[in-house]
């Protein structure tokens, strides 16, 4: 909306927006600040904001006590693994639905989406039972498999909406100019599809990273990711705010940065293309 707005009006809106923005963001800032305090400073009365003895000891303690790196490693393996596996399955599917749509394509797409609506708790026990009988409970295989399946509908949908925007005319023009199928895919399709694939990947890593039902119920030790690492702090011993903060900062920082980069794709991915 390119309307001329008085500076005064603009200043008022700016102040309101910044105040609300900072209030909403405050808990995250507070986690970050507290993670650099000593435990005594973390519960100081009145609360300390910026003027305290900054220390990084909490990060060391958290790593030592609960082996943060191990959980981080699991989180990366599971979220990246399930995303890549999901893409491998979804790219061909979305591709064919976007470029060679059949009569049933729309129904299949909607049906895929409907599997996403299945409440996890309704199928929890069968999954646990299957996992135990196959001897894959608390393993990467199980977690990657389950997360791939729960996010597959979103991956297919996102890719589909991106592929759909690639004009078929360009492909035909390339063919008329004598491009071989290999060249067509390599030099015409891929460059146009890559941004879509990249943002799909980003959003899905975020979703898999934060998934907290299956990761909490299907892991105990070996494959437990950061969600479980944080949950282990729910029964604290003694003073632990600074340590909890350090652990939380380490668990959310990577994904927060990725999230900010993917905010535009987020809308599209999470509304299945219904809002663009």
């Amino acid at each position: 909306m390119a309307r001329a707005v008085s500076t005064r009006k603009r200043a008022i809106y700016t102040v309101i927006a910044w105040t609300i923005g900072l209030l909403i963001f405050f808990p995250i800032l507070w986690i970050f600040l507290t993670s650099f305090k000593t435990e005594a400073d973390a519960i100081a009365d009145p609360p300390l904001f910026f003027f305290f003895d900054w220390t990084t000891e909490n990060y060391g303690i958290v790593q030592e006590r609960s082996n943060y790196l191990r959980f981080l490693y699991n989180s990366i393996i599971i979220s990246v693994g399930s995303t890549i596996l999901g893409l491998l399955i979804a790219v061909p599917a979305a591709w064919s639905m976007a470029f060679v749509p059949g009569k049933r394509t729309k129904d299949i797409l909607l049906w895929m989406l409907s599997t996403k609506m299945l409440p996890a708790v309704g199928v929890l026990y069968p999954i646990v039972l299957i996992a135990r009988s196959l001897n894959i409970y608390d393993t990467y295989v199980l977690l990657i498999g389950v997360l791939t399946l729960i996010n597959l509908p979103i991956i297919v949908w996102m890719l589909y909406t991106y592929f759909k925007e690639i004009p078929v005319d360009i492909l035909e023009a390339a063919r008329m100019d004598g491009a071989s199928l290999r060249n067509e895919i390599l030099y015409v399709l891929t460059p146009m599809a890559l941004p879509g694939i990249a943002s799909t990947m980003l959003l899905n890593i975020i979703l898999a990273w934060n998934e907290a039902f299956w990761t909490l119920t299907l892991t105990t030790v070996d494959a437990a990711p950061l969600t479980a690492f944080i949950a282990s702090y729910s029964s604290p011993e003694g003073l632990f705010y600074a340590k909890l903060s350090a652990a939380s900062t380490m668990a959310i920082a990577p994904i927060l940065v990725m999230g900010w980069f993917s905010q535009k794709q987020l809308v599209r991915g999470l509304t299945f293309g219904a809002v663009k």
Partner: protein
Amino acid sequence: MATQHSRSAARLMMTPAVILLLGWMLVPLVMTLYFSFLDYRPLRGAFDCCVGFDNYVRFFTSSSFWPSVLTTLQMVGGVLAITVIGGIFLAMLLDQPIWGQGVVRILVIAPFFVMPTVSALVWKNMFMNPVNGLFAYLWKFFGLTPIDWLSELPLFSIIFIVSWQWLPFATLILLTAIQSLDGEQLEAAEMDGAGVVNRFVYIVLPHLARAITVVILIQTIFLLSIFAEVFVTTGGSFGTRTLTYLIYQRVIESQNIGLGSAGGIFAVILANIIAIFLMKIVGRNLDR
């Protein structure tokens, strides 16, 4: 472009995704359905086939069923009300010309990326704790008695935490929708003498209707299965046991698989009713 050959190739490319999702949907669902007709309690060695609808009857008539439905409705309704109203307000605010809009946007969106277990734990301990929480300091500062949020106002507290996580989602989607609003239309209305309220009710709100519906439906689906926030804050006590949590307790904690499965089937049906509405909206969009 679509020759017979490419058609069958296309179908082949779709097959893995379709088969995997079909299996993912059918196998566990059929198992749950089957279990729901059994007296199946592994810890007691009970595995009796075909008790008819006993589990369903027991699930629906148990004293914790209706409270859990009520809790679920309150939680979903509360979060929806806060996030949708707050989201419309924030989206309209962020649509105004402000300095550093990009930064404010980033600040507002941030909570969505915070792991549910982190946000629940941090709110519980660092903000809502009656002794050392920030709210307790704030209350004391104003000379009030600090509140033990999670035992005195447990449901409200969880609604508050979940709303904090979902407000960014609503805001982001509504902002995207608002930005596609034609500015000239608003200007024309303004010149014709339409006030702020009229412009909002007759132009902005109708324009947002679809986005609001999408936000409500998608959030409902996610909110119905809220788990981590209850798991780490109250563990389902103090009247915060939602339907999802009740089923979880039946299946995992008391290991009454038959009973839990009957509840699971109920949850699946409930989710499907909502899903049908969402599908209609998304499906309509596909035609365009």
